[in-house]
């Protein structure tokens, strides 16, 4: 059946089974490929999007559970204050290597910073440990979150 979802401020109608994960609606139906597939089981965080600001693993989120929530993806995270700061810190500190997981990392980090402008190391661990980076950019992700937080002061 058809579902109406709101992504980055635009409304879309999609005709898929209700149990279709939001990830595939975004990537394959709407063609928004910035959100990545990594595991399909909410184990790696590559598919993280925001639902009403909350970081959410889109690979295990059925489209029929989204309702009227506002979906925000990596393509529009730069429009939020926290997202813009995170992206800038990512560039300043050269966090990225292969870059495949970084959409999800940035979505998790932006949500953290939006809700907690001055996260501690332990806050960073809690918010970011669900996101795997195979290139091992963790050291720089931690520094970049701190730098972004610094710029909020």
């Amino acid at each position, binding site marked *: 059946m058809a579902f109406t979802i709101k992504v980055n401020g635009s409304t879309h109608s999609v005709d898929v089974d209700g149990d*279709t994960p939001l990830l595939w*609606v975004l990537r394959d139906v709407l*063609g928004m490929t910035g959100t990545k597939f990594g*595991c399909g*089981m909410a184990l790696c965080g590559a598919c993280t999007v925001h639902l009403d600001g909350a970081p959410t693993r889109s690979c295990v989120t059925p489209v029929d559970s989204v309702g009227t929530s506002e979906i925000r*993806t990596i393509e529009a995270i730069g429009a939020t204050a926290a997202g813009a700061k995170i992206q800038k810190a990512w560039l300043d500190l050269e966090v990225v*290597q292969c870059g495949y997981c970084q959409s999800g990392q940035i979505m998790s980090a932006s949500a953290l910073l939006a809700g907690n402008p001055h996260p501690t190391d332990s806050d960073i661990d809690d918010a970011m440990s669900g996101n795997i980076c195979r290139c091992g950019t963790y050291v720089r992700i931690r520094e970049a979150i701190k730098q972004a937080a610094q710029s909020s002061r």
Partner: protein
Amino acid sequence: MILDHIVSRTTGSGQFERASELTRRGFIQAGVAAGGGLMLSLRLPLARGEAEAADADRFAPNAFIRIDRDGRIVLIMPYVEMGQGTYTAIPMLIAEELEVDLNQVHLEHAPPNEKLYVNPLLGVQATGNSNAIRGAWQPLRQAGATARTMLVAAAAKRWNVDPASCGAQSGAVLHVTTGRSFTYGELAGDAGRMPVPENVALKRHQDFRLIGTRAKRLDTPAKVNGTAVYGIDARPPGVKIATLAQSPVFGGRVKSVDDRAAKAVKGVRQIVRLDDAVAVVADHMGAAKKGLAALVIAWDDGPHAKLDTAAIASELEEATLKPGAVAQNIGDVGAAMARAITRVEANYEVPFLAHATMEPMNCTVHVRNDGCEVWVGHQALARAQAAAAKVAGLPLDKVVVHNHLIGGGFGRRLESDGVSRAVEIAKQVDGPVKVVWTREEDIQHDMYRPYWFDRLSAGLDGKGRPIAWSNRFAGSSVIARWLPPGFKDGLDPDSTDGAIDLVYDFPNMHVEYVRVEPLGIPTGFWRSVGPSHNVFVTESFMDELAAAAKQDAVAYRRALLTKSPRAKTVIDLAAEGAGWGQPLPERVGRGVSLQNAFATYMAHVAEVEVAKNGAVRVRRVVCAVDCGTVVNPDTVRAQVQSGIIFGITAALYGEITLKNGRVQQANFDTYQMLRMNEAPAIDVHIVQNSEPTGGMGECGTSAIVPAVANAIFAATGKRLRKMPVDVAMLKQPA
């Protein structure tokens, strides 16, 4: 090292000599480009086999630099970016000598052409083995200097002045005394008609303006806003999405498929049945996965239905009881062993490992009657093209491959099994189809880092010094399959890399390799390749010898480094930075490792804490690295950090096991990755010198595993001779 062994063996000279040799022969040609600019054609030396040797006098360019009339500088480059920073470091080499800013150099990726874009150290068009910078270092700087010289000559001719009175700066030629100037764009057409200078002078290291500075990576902005396009993001018009189930046992076959339920899934378009796999083609991956789950497939498991890892380990262990091919012999180990005061023996084992790139395997293919188009991220583009052509039954020139950014390579994307599979499926589909492996399929149908079994012994004299070192190991030769000419007389340069030519002064040393190819599990290159196995073994065993000699692990190694001053420098730096020797709490220990591989020297000191329940946490790693001339220090630092995390992941968690022929790990719950909360602090000390540039992508990984194991020994007294870490073994008795 590794594959350049092949190169140097066949040519009898090292890479730098070869580069200068080719300069003498004129390896650069220039002319006027279409559109009126300056076009430089470059020959990166190729050295494999006699056919190519016969070709050596004929000019065959394999890289191109174009300066357009609007001043745009385009480098057509044969290497791929997979996170290692190549797309930034390589343009730095040209920009340095051409006297332009880094952002003035634009990159175009070379299309697949094995003859044109051969990697000088690999002998095939591939990016791997940490050799992009090593291969490009000399030729690309020479090309930049050649272009600059020709632009200056063109300007001097217009002004009718001595070229020596002109200088190049920021993309323009300046007449110093009169202040007149022309931009490169204005000169490009004329420059194309100037003679190619014979011997251009390269900048001295102290004059480098870009090389050695922290350059911003060029590929980053698109990777933080979702616009970067990886292979999995390819969306040719009308593309369908497929996912697949391959025989859970390698070598098995599909017996029967009941696809009635799968076909009823909304969005499922087609079921493709192959001999050993079934694919579901759908409008989107959600439907494809749902369809796949609804399939009822009966498999004929084939000959490996009972295979398990323990049987492979026994086969390898037994193989080390018989003589192998001698990889290195120094002195007389037998005689030295007979007079040794202390004898140390140990067996080591390392497991099969999956690559688990964050971007799961995928390949998009459109097969038409008269041609085939492929969208993929691949480390060896020409191989991808050849694989597609073979399966599609088309000549090479009918196969177009669009290469993409790579969401993690680590050796996995040197293989073309995924391309072949996708073409097999696409042949049965009308229109383009993107085949995406689920994470489970990706892990269970990888080409794994080989399992290795090593049998070592050493003899120490009265002062504890090693007077005899013997090592015989057995495992699969990836080279023998991937680059058959590289396997000769029972040896290949990868399998033995890190086990021979050690930095230490061993008066008597004997190393043998026994090639064993376990059936029922495919093997492949994995980040840090041969050293991923050998450095763990040799550096752990060195630690055992230090312990047997009751000596400090750093001091013991240091005393054996009289012929390796660069090794001595890095071990000293790492030990000092880590506070080696300073007291630590109970069940916390430091471990050291020392490595010379990929033409780079590296020492790690790992600081590890072992909990009462046996859980290991790496708290801090101090790395000292000497990779010769540093092109981009920030990339060096990033690659060390990356390699360390990759290696710790393997040391703590990495293990692929088989039971009844089936890989038992499937996703990140059973094949775990190191995460943010477990990542250590990492300090990197870079040695500054002007030695030839070494590789960086691999080194950190192989060197960290023994450092962690040795730190665990320091913390607990338990010697880990088998990876990954066995937590049960480290549990503190109540």
